[in-house]
């Protein structure tokens, strides 16, 4: 059976003044698929992620179920956001410090399911809170009372509240310590399978990307330099930058035996 892709990005460009953050970039994303996006800092990963959801101005075409996100009306865009979710890099800064966690989580329900009764809304929030491993008594607390990992769990709960079809993860674990990183990644993967959500997972952590991705895109200076299935990419990288990136992964115990690849 041939699916048309859920998300089709073609010739996407992001320009900040004279600086080009993303040069024409094109790729597809299928239903339920996990696409890894790797590259060094400043390579345009985050700009690309935000451009897809039209959070920064961009040119090109982003087809979501054959509807161009970049060209639709603002009202239409807001309605689409129900299915398009994003998790940001800085978990604490991405939560409004003046709102209780319960209110933050209720907000998506208020907008997209306004007919919900108070009790039903509360039930949905508690269920999601439990699903991401937080306690019900945290609902009346404020974001600054939580650890980074807990904040990102709140971020995940907020993003998955309406069971979106696409989840963009913009380096969701890079500001967390390693033991917490694994928990959050596993949580994301579990929820993704449960809701059959397609995921664009951005990271500079090669191990995490390798662990969860079906396919991997490699970005360098605003351009996609390589796109391959996860196994192929890690087994036989084609582009010199990809090789350099893989070689840069520190290996425990390795001394002089490391392959040296430089650009």
């Amino acid at each position, binding site marked *: 059976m041939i699916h048309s892709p859920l998300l089709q990005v073609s010739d996407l460009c992001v320009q900040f003044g004279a600086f080009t953050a993303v040069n024409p970039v094109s790729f597809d994303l299928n239903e339920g698929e996990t696409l890894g996006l790797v590259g060094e800092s400043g390579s345009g990963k985050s700009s690309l992620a935000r451009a897809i*959801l039209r*959070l920064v101005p961009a040119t090109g075409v982003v087809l979501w179920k054959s509807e161009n996100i970049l060209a639709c009306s*603002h009202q239409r865009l*807001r*309605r*689409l*956001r*129900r299915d398009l*979710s*994003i998790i*940001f890099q*800085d978990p604490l*800064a*991405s*939560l*409004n*410090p*003046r*709102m*209780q966690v319960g209110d933050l989580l209720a*907000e*998506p329900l208020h*907008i*997209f399911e306004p007919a919900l009764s108070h009790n039903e809304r509360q039930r949905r929030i508690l269920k999601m809170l439990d699903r991401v491993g937080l306690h019900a008594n945290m609902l009346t607390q*404020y974001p*600054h009372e939580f650890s980074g990992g807990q904040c990102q769990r709140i971020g995940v709960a*907020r993003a998955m509240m309406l069971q979106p079809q696409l989840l963009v993860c913009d380096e969701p674990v890079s500001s967390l310590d390693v033991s917490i990183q694994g928990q959050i990644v596993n949580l994301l993967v579990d929820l993704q399978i449960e809701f059959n959500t397609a995921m664009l997972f951005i990271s500079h952590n090669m191990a995490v990307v390798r662990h969860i991705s079906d396919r991997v895109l490699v970005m360098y200076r605003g351009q996609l330099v390589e796109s391959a299935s996860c196994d192929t990419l890690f087994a036989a990288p084609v582009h010199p930058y990809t090789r350099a990136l893989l070689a840069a992964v520190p290996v425990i115990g390795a001394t002089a035996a490391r392959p040296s690849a430089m650009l």
Partner: protein
Amino acid sequence: MSIARAIDTLILMSRYLFKRLSAAIPTLFIIITAAFFLIHAAPGGPFDQEQRLPSQIVANLDTAFGLNQPLSVQYVRYMVALAHGDFGPSFKYKDYSVTELIVQGLPVTATLGVLAMLVALSFGVMMGTFAALRHNTAPDQATMLLAVIGIAVPSFVLLPFLGLIFGIYLHWLPVAGWESGSIRHLILPVFALALPPMSAIARLTRSNMLEVLRTPYVRTAFAKGLPRYLVIIRHALKPALVPVVGFLAPAVASILTGSLVVESIAGLPGIGRYLVQGALNRDYSLVLGMVILYSTVLILMGLVVDLLYAWLDPRVRLN
């Protein structure tokens, strides 16, 4: 649980208010003491005139008002009377006590001041938000130009100018007068009084709103699919207002001093003129009465500001 929480908040709140208000008493005491000795240190006295009065009459007046006694005795007598709520007689407005003068004029000044404050706050915040949302466009620059003019043009220029246009050429509004607080008479003075703080608030709101609009949590709010007005009202306005709240006390001070000029020009029977006139006339009790009134207003304003901070940011705890 929410009721218990509300009661807790209420208890906490009243305890806090009690603490703050009792701390205000020593502050007031110091202000009154300093003002008392400063005004008495100024050369001259209340009964000095171009035409010198016969020395016997001056001596009699001094005796009647207790001015012939040592300053320390006068100070103690004043403070004791004050503790009983007696602000003393005015030295210049014969047969009036300071309390009578203030009670007569205060409603006018208070009406004018409160209205000016409300206008300054509401329009200032609206203008600032509007400009921030249209950052670097012509409407933004026009709003900010207006704000600069508002800060730069003094009210003694603005009010006659407005009176000329709206009163004399267009015949829309009266130029001056009070007529027991009719709205038409209030519009021009309120606007003239509100314009400088309004302009400052507009500029403050704009710059803070611009900063807040770039924060990650506002980005999150947009990503959630909130319509723009809700992002502004629910997520951006409160943090953008924090510095504006800090400006409230200076704004009240600016309105209090501004009322002197505006009331004189518009011929309003307020108390704005008493502080300066009283100081020039060496009307000791009137000056002190005004100092006490203004200090109390500013101290209360400081308290309001701290309560607003706590409301705007739940991380601020009242202790």
